[in-house]
């Protein structure tokens, strides 16, 4: 599988293809822990937050919230301990970038967390990793051990007054725990139900203390931001979305993999047809889900010849979202009704059951999809699906509900013929699809 950068110098991926890249000596030989040293050598916590603000780094987990701003929400006068939590519960279908960052470069994550902890006045960091990624927890535990022995984790780091511990924590198979407040409940030993916001975790998070939850890719961007300066990092990308972004490419392309692109890479068609090696078996492109299963599906017609820019604003303009960067390519053999059914089964399985719109809504969506698939669909079923989506979207406790509704809404809108075909087996009436 390909792992590398296109259109820019590799930044987050610059070490991943080195031999023993997960080892401390390799990391240090290649610029590792220099950013931490720079921070401890004379930057104040506010200096660090300002650099991150200047970098225009946006949360890479999916929501794209400006990281520097998130950090600045942590109250300075709160006497409680503060926590930095890394969200490594990567489970958005189509997304696997964090896995390779943690497998190949775990020290980059530890360094990023330590810098975040310094900026926020925290002495404890947790890496919440999905339970299935057990081998990554073993790699992280080993990296933490190495760092501790080298005086980089624990008491008086690098001989300064800064002390900070880093611990791994395991999830146990629940997509919802990627939502930050559900993750915090899970980390407290509870069911992974999301919490009411506000208060936001920055004010009352883990154990009711101020907490920052950041994705792996977000935290691993921090050492480079400190080393090169926020402004230089921002210039790698666009004004509003700084730096580079990792895209997890899967599906019908010749070269799936993890691709690091500058934010604002300006041609999605070239990305698929050249950078990713083109379509598998020379089939025609039918659709792309560019940002993980939760975002709107894009038909080929919205990509080919359209110069779709790959950043937050560019993808919204093209009718979708960056999300987590889980880039799923589908060729002409894929039936979008079937692919959407597959995704809604995922959301039904992963709905935590906490709120009624999502719990009942996703269940009904699956029932209607199954009815259509079994050949017993009714002409009004497409409209029924949209009505159910309308009763979930914006009405559920957390964004999982929206994430379940969006793929269906966009699939029915962009690929009506695939739905029509399944419904037309029964009736000549086209119902909502006319």
């Amino acid at each position: 599988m390909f792992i590398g950068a296109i259109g820019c110098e590799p930044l987050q991926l610059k070490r991943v293809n080195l031999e023993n890249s997960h080892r401390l000596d390799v990391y240090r030989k290649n610029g590792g822990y220099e950013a931490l040293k720079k921070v401890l050598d004379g930057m104040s916590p506010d200096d660090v937050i300002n650099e991150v603000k200047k970098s225009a780094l946006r949360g890479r987990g999916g929501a794209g919230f400006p990281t520097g701003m998130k950090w600045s929400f942590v109250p300075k006068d709160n006497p409680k301990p503060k926590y930095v939590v890394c969200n490594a519960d990567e489970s958005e279908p189509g997304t696997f970038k964090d896995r390779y960052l943690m497998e190949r470069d775990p020290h980059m994550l530890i360094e990023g967390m330590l810098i975040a902890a310094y900026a926020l006045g925290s002495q404890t960091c947790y890496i919440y990793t999905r339970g299935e990624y057990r081998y990554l927890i073993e790699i992280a535990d080993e990296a933490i051990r190495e760092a501790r022995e080298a005086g980089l984790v624990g008491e008086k780091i690098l001989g300064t007054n800064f002390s900070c511990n880093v611990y791994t924590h395991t999830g146990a198979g629940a997509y919802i725990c990627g939502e930050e407040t559900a993750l915090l409940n899970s980390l407290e030993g509870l069911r992974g139900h999301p919490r009411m916001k506000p208060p936001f975790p920055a004010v009352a998070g883990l154990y009711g203390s101020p907490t920052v939850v950041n994705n792996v890719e977000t935290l691993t961007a921090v050492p480079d931001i400190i080393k090169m300066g926020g402004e230089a990092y921002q210039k790698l990308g666009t004004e509003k979305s700084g730096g580079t972004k990792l895209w997890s490419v899967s599906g019908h392309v010749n070269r799936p993999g993890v691709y690091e692109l500058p934010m604002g890479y300006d041609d999605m068609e070239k990305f698929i047809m050249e950078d990713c090696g083109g379509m598998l078996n020379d089939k025609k492109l039918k659709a792309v889900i560019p940002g993980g299963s939760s975002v709107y599906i894009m038909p080929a017609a919205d990509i080919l010849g359209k110069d779709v820019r790959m950043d937050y604003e560019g993808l919204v303009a093209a009718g979708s979202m960056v999300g987590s960067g889980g880039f799923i390519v589908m060729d002409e053999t894929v039936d979008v009704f079937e692919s959407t059914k597959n995704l809604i089964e995922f959301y039904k399985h992963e709905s935590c059951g906490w709120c009624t719109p999502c719990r009942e809504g996703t269940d009904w969506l699956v029932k209607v999809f199954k009815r259509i698939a079994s050949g017993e669909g009714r002409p009004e079923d497409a409209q029924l699906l949209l009505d159910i989506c309308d009763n979930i979207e914006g009405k559920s406790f957390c964004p999982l509900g929206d994430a379940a509704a969006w793929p269906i809404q966009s699939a029915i809108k962009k690929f009506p013929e695939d739905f029509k075909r399944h419904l037309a087996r029964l009736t000549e009436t086209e119902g909502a699809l006319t």
Partner: protein
Amino acid sequence: MLIAERFIMSSQFTPNNPLPQEAKVPEEIARFSPEVEAEIERHLAKYPPERKRSAILPLMFIVQRERGGYLDPPGVAYLADRLGVRITDIWEVATFYSMINTEPVGRYHIQVCKTLSCKIMGADRITEQCSKRLGIKPGETTPDGLFSLSVVECLGSCGTAPMLQLGFDYHENLTEAKVNELLDRCQRGEYQPTVGVKTSA
């Protein structure tokens, strides 16, 4: 802010909640070797002393590993006792997470990923092949207790699809031949898990 904060605190587990004695399962509480106890201590040490409950998931993995692959009642009683929570608190959490088994599973638990990227790269073929060869449907265990077969949601192996997880090991870029070879090794008792067997640091 204060009201909201109070809401958060009251809606969650309060530390050192006294245990009502009658809630304890009386008959048997699991016992573990000093090595396993040391492993459990290492996990507990990661969290503030009054927040032992945070270790519930890591400890559940250890208990299910030591108790034959699932949380049996003595294992559940152990966890409640060790963490200072009620039996129902343990069940409440155990039933939420898909990797915590509350029923026995086969020695080789084969989990085929079924979500979109794997689906369009041939996941159904892999499931069918396993199902046919083992003579069980997804969700079932072979009568000899050797194999369980499950279809599961996205395991983050989309670029190397189709894939399955066996125990904690990922097997990726699967072909019919690779699956056959893997099942052969299991049936001959030659399959050695590479991940999650040693006591972690």
